[in-house]
């Protein structure tokens, strides 16, 4: 359990996924190490969300092995799977908050269902989670339709964190946010990793965010992981897609300086 021991919380091996006979993933091999933030990039349509959705069990796979927290999801029975569900949190791209519940009740939902605490402690924990993601306690009473995009993402993050998960899946957490909010969100993710020690699997297109938060980056292309490593390794890579991705028009010059220095 000690932080810093590099054991893998998620192990993906030789994963093959087909959607309507089209082979989207063809032999993906990927590890998420304990306590790290893994940025996951790839061209649009390369199958990033397919991989994420396959790992969290929303899509069926054809072949391969997925092991989460040491449990092989194929061999696990329903109870074991539900136990795993409690130990990860997922932040969907649009937040996926339940529109019929207030922000606070959204965060309380998993706490109430799984932990069976008193109403008082449940509410206190929900408020504490909302404050932890940088929201005011009174957001508790707002319905999702009354919140801005950035606030919805924060509430959704609070809900993903409700049960103090060990793994956090973030699907494009900074997309649709203004640069200030996106920067704050990056900082928030770093703080959460430091304080809670969660391992974070982050799909993103935001180069700033990749640069600032990620310990490692994995690149998906042609149904396989093309490359995985630190930002510096990505910048130094000669793969043509990586070159145009990390040295393209949206890249910053100071990153290149860092590589040289």
């Amino acid at each position, binding site marked *: *359990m000690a*932080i810093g021991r590099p054991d893998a919380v998620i192990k993906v091996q030789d994963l093959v996924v087909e959607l309507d006979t089209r082979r989207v993933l063809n032999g993906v091999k990927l590890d998420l190490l304990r306590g790290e933030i893994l940025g996951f990039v790839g061209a649009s349509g390369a199958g990033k969300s397919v991989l994420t959705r396959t790992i969290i069990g929303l899509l069926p796979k054809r072949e391969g092995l997925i092991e989460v927290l040491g449990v092989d999801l194929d061999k696990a029975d329903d109870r074991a799977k539900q136990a795993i569900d409690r130990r990860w949190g997922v932040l969907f791209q649009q937040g996926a908050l339940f*529109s019929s519940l207030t922000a606070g009740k959204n965060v309380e939902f998993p706490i109430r269902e799984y*932990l*069976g*605490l*008193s109403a008082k*402690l449940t509410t*206190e*924990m929900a*408020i*504490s*989670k909302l*404050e*932890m993601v940088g929201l005011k*306690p*009174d957001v*508790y*009473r707002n319905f999702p*339709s009354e919140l801005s995009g950035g606030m919805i993402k924060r509430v959704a993050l609070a809900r993903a*964190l409700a*049960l*103090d998960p060990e793994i956090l899946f973030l699907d494009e957490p900074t997309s649709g946010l203004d640069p200030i909010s996106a920067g704050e969100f990056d900082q928030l993710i770093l*703080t959460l990793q*430091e*304080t*809670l*020690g969660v391992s974070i699997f982050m799909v993103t297109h935001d180069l700033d965010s990749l640069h600032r938060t990620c310990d490692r980056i994995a690149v998906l292309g042609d149904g396989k992981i093309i490359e995985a490593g630190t930002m510096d390794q990505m910048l130094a890579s000669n793969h043509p897609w990586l070159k145009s991705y990390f040295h393209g028009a949206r890249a910053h010059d100071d990153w290149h300086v860092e590589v040289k220095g």
Partner: protein
Amino acid sequence: MTAGTLLSGQVTAGGLGLAASGAWTAEHARTLEPLVEHATRTDATVQRIIIDVTRIERLDTYGAWLIERTLRVWTSRGCDTRIVGLSDSYGNLFKKVRAGAGKLTPLPRRSNSITATLESVGRTMSAVFADIMLFSQMAGALVIAFLRVVAHPTKFRLTSMVNHLERVGWHAVPIILLITFLIGSILAQQGIFHFRTFGADIYVVDMVGVLVLREVGVLIVCIMVAGRSGSAYTAELGSMKMREEVDALRTMGFDPVEVLILPRIFALIITVPILTFLGSMAALYGGGIVAWLYGGIDPQVFLARLHESISVKSFAVGMIKAPFMAIVIGLVACVEGLQVKGSAESLGAKTTDSVVKSIFLVIVLDGAFAIFFASIGV
């Protein structure tokens, strides 16, 4: 994981020392909560609290919050509080939890039930008033768009109107025929069943004829059209509003009323009288068939009796109402569609509103027509 945990207290000179151990995590929070509650029972003599967390094996936000809450309770009673034995990795967690206020600002007190009722009545009334304003506004905008189209006939969106004619008219014919046929049959059956007691079977023809042509035909058709096409209009316009298509039209210099709403309402004005005619005929046909098979009234007798009992006036009374009903249905559907705000819930709510309001207004309008025709003696 590690088994249940404990918070043991021993009173030392002037203060209370509490020692926490084991796993203070989410899955044990249920057993920890009573322990923490117990530890905050008032003991007036206590001046200082020290919580020793050295032997905690695992800690997450739940455990941190429970310990923090204990400290807050004692601090609020004026005690000195302190945590000892906190490791660096958990220090950050405590800092994060401590930073929060942890409670909501209390809501303003609810006013008593009488004023609350009055308030809701007032709000409903002002909403009704706002609706009336919106409908008049839309009616005005429609008239202006209509006059503009009359002045420049090439501006009229004929293709769009034909498309809507097909959808709200042609595609509605089978279901309208079926429903009105059944209603006519039921009317005739009930009439025969009850009139038979008085030996007045033949007057069923009068009843069915007058009822169908004056009232039932047009009402049933309008209710069907409101449910079928009015809701579709609201949903279409609403989703266009949601995706800012309406705003896009406006910025390109087009009037949404002219482009989107006028062709739709024209399609309804043309369609509803035709459907009313078809529906009335189907209802009479249904009535005739039931009168023949169930009541033993020969079709020839039925037709002859119908010829005597109804005039073109009865038919005209029904038909003249149809275009007005169409305008009401179209107006309500389009106003509600343009009221849709950004969310999918509001789209659903407005579609429901559209159907409820247009059926209500159709029936009110029918009542108004009944009063009007009675007073002019038709």
